């Protein structure tokens, strides 16, 4: 039976922010719909309304012309609307089967039979009796999808499903979604990734500042047209001037970097050697989980490895801790902004003070000089166009893009000679990504160096002067980026060889 979902004049107002402003959309089964927008455009609010988590101030939802009253998640379930949230709604300490059985109405035996049927049909391989916390992100998402499928949904909403997936897992997901679509499930796909819209979806609705600004067929769209609709202005294309001069001073040199761990979740690093010149950007590509975490921690001094030599500005720094390395003018931007780079419960200015214990005059006789820190923080907020000037704001209320800008600003305002960043634009929207890329290029223009560890091939090709690939803890040959193509990187990242 065909499904027809209609959203009519939905509005939702939060104090100080119109999350949804008179949103009307129509969806029909047999197609995959994209809901595209930057972070904060109102996509998540809309899907929370559709899944009954929050109720709208105004407006109605119709499923096959029946007016739905969605005042709790149960209502959405009853009306066969399934939802896979961006932040998984799973119980980490319960087993997969317990997670799936918690809202089931049938007995465990027949439930298990039905789950196994689904696993077989869609080629999922998941052990039902392990706790969810042992699963990879991709597997967790599959558990969420199975939970929806068990209720034979008419509508399946996916909220930014690929933000935690590897490329391989993303491909698998797309294959499954197309299968669901062929079986008559209406799919609404929320994302801010333009390429995914073009490769997966049939129709796309673009949201900006709580409003729907365009609805169109994806075949009539290109990355550029969608991007400008999403951001509301034309994005300047940025391109880096490749740094080719060979006669510059070497500033950073790593020799015999080895790392061995007993923890099966960590990757061993095998004899990494590389060096970096002034004003150069060295890109390190790779699929996540190939040793990037460990490499970042060793370079930042969180892990000290024996027998490794790290020369920075003609000094041996391999035995120094992160604080001492910062004093030698290194700066770090870790992958996990919330738990590694900043303390979400602290205010902006407190987070700014965290890595500047030594510098300036933040602390006098063991007391905090709040006025100085606040002045300094205000300068960071304005210099790095963070979307607030309130230094008293708790960092957890900043969006990902603004938090990343704050962190980069905090690191860069000390004028470091070397910045090491790991996935600096992970999960950010186009506008923020552009800004951060510009900033990173500017650093190189000022003769400062950067090491960019990233899983985003496009970003690496755009920003790096030289690129190496890390695979299972081993580093490939370092290549000038002009000689590198996405295909070459892809082969190396998959463990192949190109010579």
């Amino acid at each position, binding site marked *: 039976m065909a499904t027809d979902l209609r959203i009519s004049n939905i509005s939702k107002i939060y104090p100080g922010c119109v999350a949804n402003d008179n949103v009307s959309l129509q969806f029909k089964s047999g197609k995959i719909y994209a809901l595209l927008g930057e972070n904060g455009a109102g996509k998540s609010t809309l899907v*929370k309304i559709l*899944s009954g*988590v*929050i*109720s709208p101030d105004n407006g109605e939802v119709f499923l096959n012309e029946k007016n739905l009253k969605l005042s*709790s*998640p*149960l209502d959405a*379930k009853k009306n066969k609307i399934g939802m896979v*949230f961006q932040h*998984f*709604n*799973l*119980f*980490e*300490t*319960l087993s997969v089967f*317990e997670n799936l*059985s*918690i*809202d089931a109405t049938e007995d465990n035996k027949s439930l298990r039979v039905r789950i196994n049927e689904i696993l077989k049909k869609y080629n999922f391989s998941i052990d039902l009796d392990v*706790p969810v*916390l042992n699963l990879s992100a991709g597997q967790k998402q599959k558990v969420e999808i199975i939970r929806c499928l068990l209720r034979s949904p008419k509508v399946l909403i996916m909220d930014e499903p690929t933000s935690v997936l590897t490329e391989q897992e993303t491909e698998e997901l797309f294959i499954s979604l197309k299968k669901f679509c062929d079986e008559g499930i209406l799919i609404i796909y929320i994302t801010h990734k333009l390429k995914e819209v073009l490769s997966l979806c049939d129709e796309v609705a673009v949201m900006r500042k709580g409003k729907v600004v365009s609805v169109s067929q994806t075949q009539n769209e290109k990355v550029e047209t969608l991007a400008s609709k999403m951001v509301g202005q034309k994005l300047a294309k940025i391109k880096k001037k490749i740094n080719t001069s060979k006669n510059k001073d070497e500033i950073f040199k790593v020799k015999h970097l080895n790392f061995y761990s007993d923890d099966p979740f960590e990757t061993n690093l095998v004899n990494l050697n590389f060096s970096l010149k002034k004003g150069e950007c060295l890109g390190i590509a790779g699929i996540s989980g190939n040793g990037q975490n460990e490499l970042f921690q060793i370079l930042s001094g969180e892990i000290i490895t024996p027998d490794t030599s790290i020369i920075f500005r003609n000094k041996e720094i391999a035995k120094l801790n992160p604080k001492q390395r910062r004093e030698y003018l290194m700066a770090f931007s870790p992958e996990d902004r919330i738990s590694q780079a900043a303390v979400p419960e602290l205010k902006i200015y407190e987070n700014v003070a965290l890595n500047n214990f030594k510098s300036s005059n933040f602390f006098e006789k063991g007391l905090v000089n709040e006025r100085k820190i606040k002045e300094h923080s205000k300068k960071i907020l304005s210099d790095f166009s963070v979307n607030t000037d309130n230094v008293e704001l708790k960092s957890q209320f900043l969006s990902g893009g603004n938090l990343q800008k704050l962190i980069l600003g905090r690191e860069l305002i000390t004028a470091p000679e070397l910045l090491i960043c790991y996935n600096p634009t992970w999960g950010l929207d186009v506008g923020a990504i552009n800004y951060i890329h510009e900033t990173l290029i500017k650093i190189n223009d000022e003769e400062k160096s950067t090491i960019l560890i990233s899983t985003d091939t496009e970003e690496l090709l755009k920003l790096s002067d030289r690129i190496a690939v890390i695979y299972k803890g081993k580093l490939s040959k370092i290549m000038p980026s002009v000689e590198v193509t996405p295909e070459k990187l892809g082969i190396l990242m998959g463990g192949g060889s190109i010579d």
Partner: protein
Amino acid sequence: MSLDISFIGVLIGSIMASSVPLILAASGELITERSGVLNLGVEGMMIIGAISGFALMVITDNLFIAIIGSMLSGVIISLIFGFLTQSLLTNHVATGLALTIFGIGLSAMLGKNFVGIPGKDFPILFSSLRESIPFFGPILFGHSIVLYFAFALPFLTNYFLKKTKLGLVVRAVGDSPVSASNQGINVILVRYCCILYGGGMCGLAGAYLSLIYTPQWIENMTAGRGWIALALVVFATWSPIKVLIGAIIFGGISILQLHMQAIGFRIPVQFLIALPYLMTIIVLVVISRDSRKIKLNTPTSLGRIFYKEK
């Protein structure tokens, strides 16, 4: 003193009796904590249970009413905690501490007229078997019904949490209230129920003290047992069976060290008094060393305030 076999049997029987209030209170608190609520008011709820049980016994002269009434009073006082933490979103730790202080004060006030009144004999089961079977008789028979219930309770709790749907819901709520709410589970209701159940069990634990163990009312007669019960839950890493083991060790060493004092061991009394606390912690830490299991049993959202998005 001769350590003959029947004496050991009596000794074990008295150890079991002394661990009953700990088992009851800790099993109740375990369910509360498994739903993600940290109620530090155990001591307060126990002492309220103790005085209301004793007072009802004196007034109605009916032990059944006294026992039921003590549980109800535990439920009522935990309802205050539930209303504050779940409906008014106050901090669990502060509210729980306040509850304990309130309970101790209130019980002292209510108990003024009951000091010095002798208790009543609580009926014991199978008393003839107790005398006729050597060694096993005093261990297995001649106890109050509350003791049998207490020793069954950890196994029932374990079964409830692991095998029943409701137990699964409780664990899910304790793991991630947000996810549970998004799955349509009424988190607040589940947590209220777990809090009230915990209160009921603490009330019963208090009544065991004032009606059965030492049948009389003495001010502050719980003497820190509520805090021990709380510690047991944590050191037993939220496993009901380990709570039982911990309670028996604590009760056992408390009794043994009294005998050691009586015999006149050349060990400082202070050390002997500290011994039960020390040994219980050491044993529970040693038997709960599996970090994977700890992670799986620990209620992730413990003590955190949950409120529903609107």
